[in-house]
């Protein structure tokens, strides 16, 4: 697994990636953007996660296919291993239900904070939304899961 300093590289790369235009059109959602807004990156929450981990770690990361929230939730996300919430540290991936981001910390109310590409697909009851890419509250720590990138060569 990556060390604390490598985790900080992941968190830094996520924050330096700038604004994202939220989209799930590759998963089959009509009405989501097919092109990013000017100067932004296009994708959903797990695209930002992959961007941050891949860019922050480079060839040190074990790599793998893009993992969506379903892959994290069912334990098939390549290049990651789940860690206990008590062991979570910045740069890990935080997943809650259908949303994911890069973990930044837990506040005094035991709420998990994470940097994320925020929005919702057009299939949601509220319709498409592209919210700011920023640190958000992922909710109570007992409702979240944490995944740490593996190093190249690790099983």
């Amino acid at each position, binding site marked *: 697994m990556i060390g604390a300093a490598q985790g900080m590289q992941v968190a830094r790369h996520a924050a330096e990636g700038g604004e994202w235009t939220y989209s799930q059109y590759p*998963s089959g959602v009509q009405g989501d953007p097919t092109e990013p807004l000017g100067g932004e990156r296009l994708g959903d929450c797990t695209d930002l996660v992959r961007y941050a981990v891949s860019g922050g770690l480079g060839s040190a990361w074990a790599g793998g296919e893009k993992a969506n929230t379903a892959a994290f939730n069912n334990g098939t996300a390549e290049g990651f291993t789940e860690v206990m919430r008590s062991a979570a540290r910045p740069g890990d991936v935080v997943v809650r239900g259908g*949303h994911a981001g890069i973990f930044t910390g837990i506040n005094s109310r035991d709420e998990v904070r994470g940097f994320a590409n925020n929005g*919702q697909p057009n299939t949601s009851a509220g*319709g498409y939304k592209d919210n700011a890419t920023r640190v958000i509250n992922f909710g109570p720590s007992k*409702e979240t899961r944490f995944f740490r990138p593996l190093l190249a060569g690790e099983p």
Partner: protein
Amino acid sequence: MGTNKLVVLCAMLPVAAAWSCRTGKQEATGQQVPAAEVTLSEALRHSLSSASAPLPDSLLACEAYGGGDPQLALARFRVLGSAMHADTAVVRAEVVSVADVRLAADGPYEVRQRVRTDTLSWSLLPLAESGRWGVCGYSREGVGFVRLQYLQPPARWLNGASLASVQDLADSLAIEH
């Protein structure tokens, strides 16, 4: 208290105040919150498979990011009750759904048609600007609702399901309480 005084007081309330400006009284922990039940009922009505317009932001108190997991195609619902928990009104409803939609691990959405009844709960918070209750994101169980008409290839409709078959099934069960 006169109406004007109540309006002024409601405008001054902090977001976290456990106060219903529609009823003008403080709710105690465990107390039923009819105004919150009305809000959830309105939100669920906008989430039905037959709904023609998306759920308006005015009914929401929190952001709902990324889509629920799973997302259900809602045929009908029945609000069961509510109770205050600190500053939050927790409202329960029985929902009858006709399909669930999940992201497959390899990328696209998958639609499974089936009829299922669940009892779910939502957290509602007072809205600072209106004094009304707002729904806080997905259900507390993480479930959201889906607008199936916006799925297109490469989404997969499993076991012979189609948009028409799911909508027909929803229509046949659509008796709202």
